[in-house]
């Protein structure tokens, strides 16, 4: 898993990261690049918003649908099909994200829509897989005890299966969102907009200021998103089944 950890356990990665960021910022300022970057302030703000919309829409849809499909596949009546579906999911996951975006472009044309759909698929699959595997890993005797005590199927899912699978599900969501945020700049290549516009144009023109104007906010967003989901994982997964909180 990634470096983001919970408070109390270790804030060290964040301190190190902040120190490196500070050093880079000082370096940029000293070399005059900071001024170059800040020239693109208006572009940064505009494209960052676009970028955020790509990530937020594709990410939130993927989380909602990934959870739903993962839960659905884990139901006993789906047992005959779920293995096949997960195999298919694994196969699609192995297609490089750039390939997925290109395929979406050939299906849906250019613009934000194919970008969002492509990102959505890339994000969806790890969430489906982890939700399904997480629920399946809940020990059968535990589910049996729940049933024997008089929980209905829905109650078993809500009160036993999901809480015990939650840590694995969150791991899937974090991985998926890292893929999402990491791939979002490429959306520019199929006309999806976002910070990729600054990065790729900067590279083409060998304008380091422009390139960094796209790259730095992208990096910060990735760190922020991972931090956010790391915190959610730390606080939302019950203490009894949360390896981060068992000391």
């Amino acid at each position: 898993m990634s470096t983001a950890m919970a408070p109390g356990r270790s804030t060290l990665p964040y301190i190190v990261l902040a120190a490196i960021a500070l050093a880079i910022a000082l370096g940029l300022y000293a070399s005059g690049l900071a001024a170059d970057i800040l020239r693109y302030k208006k572009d940064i703000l505009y494209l960052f918003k676009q970028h955020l919309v790509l990530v937020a829409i594709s990410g939130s849809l993927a989380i909602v649908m990934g959870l739903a499909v993962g839960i659905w596949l884990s139901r006993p009546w789906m047992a005959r099909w779920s293995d096949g579906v997960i195999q298919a999911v694994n196969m699609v996951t192995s297609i490089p994200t750039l390939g997925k975006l290109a395929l979406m472009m050939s299906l849906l044309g250019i613009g934000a829509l194919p970008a969002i759909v492509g990102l959505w698929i890339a994000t969806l699959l790890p969430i489906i897989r982890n939700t399904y595997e997480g629920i399946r890993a809940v020990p059968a005797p535990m589910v049996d005890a729940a049933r024997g005590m008089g929980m209905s199927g829905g109650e078993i899912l809500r009160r036993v299966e999901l809480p015990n699978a939650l840590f694995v599900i969150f791991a899937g969501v974090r991985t998926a969102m890292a893929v999402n945020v990491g791939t979002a700049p490429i959306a520019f290549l199929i006309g999806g907009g976002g910070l990729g516009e600054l990065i790729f144009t900067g590279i083409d023109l060998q304008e380091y200021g422009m390139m960094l104007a796209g790259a730095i906010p992208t990096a910060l967003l990735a760190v922020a998103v991972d931090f956010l989901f790391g915190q959610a994982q730390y606080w939302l997964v019950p203490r009894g089944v949360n390896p981060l909180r068992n000391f």
Partner: protein
Amino acid sequence: MIRLEGLSRTYSTARGAVTAVDNVSLEVDDGETCVLLGPSGCGKTTTLRMINRLVLPTSGKIFIAGRDTDGVDPVQLRRGIGYVIQQIGLFPNMTVAENIGVVPRLLGWSLAKSRRRAEELLALLALEPAQFLGRYPNELSGGQAQRIGVARALAVDPPVLLMDEPFAALDPINRESIQDEFLRMQKTLRKTILFVSHDIDEAVKMADRIAIFRAGRLAQFGPPDELLARPADDFVASFVGRDRTLKRLRLIRVRDVMISPTDGVGASGPSVSPDDDLRSVAALFLEHDVESIRCIDDTGRVVGRVSRAAVAARLKSELAR
């Protein structure tokens, strides 16, 4: 009262139909503990699981308090029956208080009421409520977890408890002490209990009646002393063991064979308490070359004596009955 009538369960497998439980009929009275005993694969657990309908019978009927359980919604039925299992009974995502409160909450009790009940039950099981309510199962020892498993089954005070090898995973010392505690509780609670075990010693200790299973069939059903004194067939005899007479001794208390005249026993030599079982008496007879042993009560007063002849006569009389 629980009554099983001609209960059978068959499974169809690749090698044809397998009968896990074959035409089992038995009756357990209110307040009685019935141990379902037998080697693994004998159908005892399947029988237990048919009572709360985790397994559906292929044929036969189950009556609880005179009511055919066929007609009851399984979810409602299970909420009214305490259920304790061996493996990971507790939910690791819930605190002790939440675990005990599962069924109360399902039945719509308030949080405060179910918490009060959890405190009550922990106190009953000699676990300090303030110390345990907020703990998670991974912060408990095996013995503590199993006690809380029992507490959880008792949460809504169900008249019937089903226990599937509840103490099998514990070390012998812990097992003895939790069995003793459970017997002490059962004296006042008087639950109707079906208890699955593969351990003859546990069965003799816990049961009012024992149902021995063999290959899905009921081999013998009766009080422990009857099984030990008169095994119905070779299978039962070999299952209860060649030392069954010694096992019978544990069922008899000193006070039952004690006679009052204390003449002939000296002021020194071995002694027992009236509440000891006859195993300790037998051990003393083997150790010491005496004809009778003094019985001394809690206050240190000599209240009677037990003779070799009385022990032998008692074993014979139970046999003849």
